């Protein structure tokens, strides 16, 4: 088979999203830091505002709900879509899996887990509450 990649010495062998998925498949939430240590997301080839090479890190996986909406797809149960602030200082969109999504609140503490979001898709980070609320 013809090699269509034609990689040169300077070509990258993996994209930022490819690396993210590789971590996710291992149950790791990967993110990046710039030269000052500031965390950012989503993964990029260069650090925003700096233009320097980012470094990769793996999140502890804990954080809090920054904002939340229940998405009402017709004919389906409400879907808890949230912006999650991870404790390392970056934010991602995700789901919060909960039996009673109506009771989720901004500020609730959450922890990451991984599952495919649709049949045949790679695992992606989702969240669940870390503690019962009083």
């Amino acid at each position, binding site marked *: 088979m013809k090699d269509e990649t034609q990689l040169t010495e300077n070509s990258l062998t993996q994209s930022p999203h490819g690396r993210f998925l590789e971590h996710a498949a291992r149950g790791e939430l990967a993110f990046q830091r710039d030269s000052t240590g500031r965390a950012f*997301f989503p993964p990029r080839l260069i650090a925003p505002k700096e233009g320097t090479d980012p470094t990769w890190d793996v999140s502890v996986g804990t954080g809090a709900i*920054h904002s939340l*909406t229940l998405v009402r797809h017709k004919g389906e149960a409400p*879907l808890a*879509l949230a912006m999650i602030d991870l404790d390392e200082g970056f934010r991602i969109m*995700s789901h919060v899996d909960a039996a009673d999504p109506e009771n989720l609140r*901004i500020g609730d503490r959450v922890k990451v887990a991984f599952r495919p*979001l*649709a049949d045949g898709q790679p695992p*992606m980070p989702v969240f669940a509450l870390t503690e019962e609320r009083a």
Partner: protein
Amino acid sequence: MTSKRGSVAVVGAAESDLGRVADHMTPIDLMAQAVQRALVDCGLRLQDVDGLFTATSQVRMAPLALAEYLGIRPSYFDGTNIGGSSFMSHLAHAHAAIEAGLCSVAVIAYGSTQRSVSRAAASPREYNAYETPYRPILPTSAYALSAARHMHLYGTTREQMAEVAVAARQWALMNPKAWEKEPLTIDDVLSARMISDPLTVRDCCLVTDGGGALVLVSAEKARDLDVTPIYVLGHGETLSHASISSMEDLTVTGAAQSGPQAFAMAGVTPADMDVTILYDAFTITPILFLEDLGYCPKGEGGRFVSGGAIAPGGSLALNTNGGGLSYCHPGMYGMLGMIEAVQQLRGRSGKRQVDGARMALAHGNGGVLSSQCTVIFGTADTV
């Protein structure tokens, strides 16, 4: 160097057909219709047009398609597409181009048939590996995330957001071209079908067809025409993110940058505005823009719009055409907001006319609170 306050003026402004247009009409048909009406409005001819500014979600290379349709070969053009605020941005760019001598008669045009062909067909969304798999209903869920955060931080309520929809409806009932013809109550908004909490379908803008055009020339040229020129006093624009996940603060928009730029250029303040047009894609957006543009402090927007303050007879004449919520929302509403600002200053807004309006602000929003562009217009005595 910034453009000079009052050195260009809008001399022609027109809507295309709106609402649900004739079967098989195209976005470019509507652009051309509006361009013709706007040129008739100011007594200029198609052959005079040498600057073309246009965007629509339905045509990949809108300046090409419109230039072909009109049969013109513009020497200057701009197809910047940053969503609903594109036309405010076009106006700012046309201002600079006219000052630089790159064109003399600039036409800005928009057309959309998103009601006829469906929103999904008119505005297909790009795949985002970090958002799409989570199935947000975009753009609504993005604005819902902003609204929920605003409610959490500032105690903004669903009733306050509903006030925005109710006021828009009251204005729309005075606009014969408005899509909505029936009154609306706070309860109607609150009890409507929930799309993405806290936003119900009545917190969301309409899905209509529509379009419009503006003709912009130098102040000198405007004085040679038999028109009431409406001068461009100031503008500001900025981009802050593309995806809602990357918005730095869900409750602070780029209007906090574009607004002060526009006010500084114009040398005026929010209190000087007789008419204010704020892009109302969702009921939360005018609340955010009132704060970010300096009409009220951050967090006070919900209280600011309460008690009929932005309805007809209230303390602020806001979205006097009925806005994207009740008048017309073809997907990229900014063009129609500017047309209303211009018509108000020309005294052509009929029953909803704000008496003696001399200055108007039109603020555009694009994407998911992503692009923010502010324009301030004034009558001749404000220059």
